[in-house]
């Protein structure tokens, strides 16, 4: 029997409590902290009940990292002599980074010089996995051109703008082949695993001055230039997206035939959802909260299940399904020419 592998994923090194303590020590290293501050930090970085375990250990000295401030009773300072962060990486973490180097998306984050330097640093590290060991067999065929020089340049400009909150001047080819030009603030990059595409959430001001959030396919950006203007405040993207949330969730009835429940539960697990068992029928009622912008995608997913999933609500969604079923019925009955091709 060979050794399973050199690494342990489930290791105390990565435990949440260590990170809570590290953050407490970081703050206590810069200025003495009170017990209530310790509890607050434990609540912020730990699990729901972590503070109950961590804070007494620190205050009692069983974990002897803190010392009472002799001049200010109730305040605690840090006994460490050096900053806690950044912490050195383990072999497992380096091995994971090394595996990423072969990912075609990795170069988007670096210049060629940086990549050379990074490869030198990871020279003796064995990759945790080989990208070629994975096959995303149903990913769409038209994913973004990650290796294209222009795409890489645009991503580099966008990434810098995101992190520095710099406004960009963009020109963009729309889906209908129109060219748009705008000045906008990049706020978020969304990656879709299904289509292998990056989408940029960028805020711009309309002619009336009202701010709006545009979603741009990075591959359709024709040029991206820095403007030298910066936004002082970060933008709450989720607040914009909340406006697109459906008012009424879609409600499905799922049968247990053909393993439908199991398939559907996994398929729709990326949505916020609620599932109930209908005791009288043995079927299941699933309520899905979705983003209105992706309604057609959800509709197509539901159709792919065929009759094992029925849409119960809302009426507007049922009507869309009914329309498609009606169109299908109008196309006529099966043509029984099996294997005629």
């Amino acid at each position, binding site marked *: 029997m060979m050794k399973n592998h050199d690494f342990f*994923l489930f290791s105390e090194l990565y*435990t949440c409590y260590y990170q809570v303590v590290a953050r407490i020590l970081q703050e206590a290293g810069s200025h003495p902290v009170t017990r209530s501050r310790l509890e607050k930090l434990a609540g912020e970085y730990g699990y729901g009940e972590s503070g109950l375990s961590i804070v007494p250990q620190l205050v009692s000295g069983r974990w*002897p990292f803190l010392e009472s401030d002799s001049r200010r009773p109730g305040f605690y300072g840090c006994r460490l002599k050096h900053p806690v962060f950044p912490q050195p990486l*383990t072999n497992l973490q380096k091995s994971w980074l090394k595996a990423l180097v072969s990912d075609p998306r990795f170069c988007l984050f670096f210049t060629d010089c940086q990549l050379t*330097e990074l490869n030198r640093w990871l020279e003796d590290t064995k990759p945790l996995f080989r990208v070629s060991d994975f096959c995303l067999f149903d990913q769409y065929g*038209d994913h973004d051109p990650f290796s294209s020089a222009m795409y890489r340049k645009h991503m580099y400009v966008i990434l810098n703008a995101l992190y520095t909150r710099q406004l960009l001047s963009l020109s963009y080819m729309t889906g209908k082949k129109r060219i748009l030009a705008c000045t906008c603030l990049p706020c*978020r990059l969304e990656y*879709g695993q299904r289509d292998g595409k990056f989408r940029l959430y960028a805020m711009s001001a309309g002619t009336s001055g009202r701010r709006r959030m545009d979603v741009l396919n990075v591959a359709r950006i024709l040029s991206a230039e820095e403007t030298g203007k910066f936004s002082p405040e970060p933008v709450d993207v989720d607040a914009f997206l909340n406006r697109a949330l459906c008012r009424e969730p879609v409600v499905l009835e799922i049968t247990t035939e053909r393993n439908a429940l199991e398939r559907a539960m996994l398929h729709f697990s990326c949505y916020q959802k609620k599932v109930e068992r209908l005791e009288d029928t043995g079927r299941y009622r699933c309520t899905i*909260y979705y983003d209105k912008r992706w309604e057609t995608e959800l509709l197509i997913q539901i159709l792919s299940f065929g009759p094992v999933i029925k849409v119960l609500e809302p009426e507007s969604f049922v009507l869309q399904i009914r329309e498609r079923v009606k169109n299908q019925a109008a196309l006529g009955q099966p*043509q029984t020419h099996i294997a005629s091709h």
Partner: protein
Amino acid sequence: MSEYKELIRQFDKIRSYVRDFYIYGFKTREEFREKSGRTYDNQRRRMESWFSGYMQADQNGRKKSVFLTMDSSRMAVNPLYQAWKSKTFTDNDIILRFFLPDLLADGRFRSVETIADQLQEQYCCLIDTQTIRRKLAACEREGLVVRRKEGRQHLYGTAGCRSMPPDQLLEPLARAVGFFQGAAPFGFIGSTVLDFWDRKNEYFRFRSDYLVHTLEDEVLLALLTAMEGQAGVLMTVKSTRGRRARDVTVTPLKILISTQTGRRYVCAGQQGSHRLSTFRLDTIQNAVVLEPDPDYENHMKHYQDIFPRMWGVSLGDTRAAETVSAQICLDEKEETHILARLDREGRGGVLKRLEPGVYQYCRVCLDAAELLPWIKSFTGRIRSFCCSNPAVEQRFWNDMDMMKAYYLPSGDYSDDEKP
């Protein structure tokens, strides 16, 4: 009776609970029959603690179900990674975790005895040399500490620049990690890098992300280790429908990931035969790497030969390929997106324009039944559907009839029809 703790010793014990709470979410306490009610209560309390903010409860009469739910496209970091960060530790573990690096940060190398003395002098920590030696050995394995021999003594120091990238790479690397912790296998490891560097993922989000995959990572690591060594694995597999677990010995060849359905599989060669099989990763409870398989190359060649004829992961009941053909109607001016869908989602199928507004899609595959969900996603546009496997063709039309029966119950397809 042992006291409840937030942290746990073994990951396996909570894997199925997290999955059930997240994927299904309708099970009540009584339905978790594999362990006692008290075990369920403790696990539920842990999950409420680990995933606070994402846990919800539903009361149905006297029965209460607790579930874990979230919109994955809003998550900066997969909340399920928290489960990986719940390992228990001892007082000495945490003391040495912080004091050892702090002591060694000056770059000097020290013997175990000197380390023990200085921990006592500088940090008032009395820890025996045996414990320190064990911890240093563990840190050395993890790459956090290096050892060198001077005379008859072993001296220990920090790994220095080996464990930290050059300063100028920290920023771009932290950005890349922010992205890949959500987009690469073993993303949990990326989230620990962010933890170690006190960074957050602020700017990346991931659409249609199947967060539950992280629970399979330990099994995945064993499979990848076997694949790299061209070795076999002994796996314990328990299908979602079956009650019993069974052991199988196979040679893993490829990890097959469905970005559409959220399933991940391993395609593996059966030892002692030339047959291939696929197993869902979430059904594999355990995997132990065995010796290298001398037949590995043959299995891989077999996989490469048949892969172009697979639609998904099914190898079919027979080796005879099946043919599917569908005619799809669309408005060529207004509905170019339909044509784009056929092209980009068709996995190498042949698309042919039969007449204005009608395209024929044709694909050869090992198991035509696998194509049905995709074809059905074009409901409303399918002018014909034919398959060399009559059972598949029949099932398609039966499904269409059932859809009509439910959504158009009166059989009247006119526009003013009411449900």
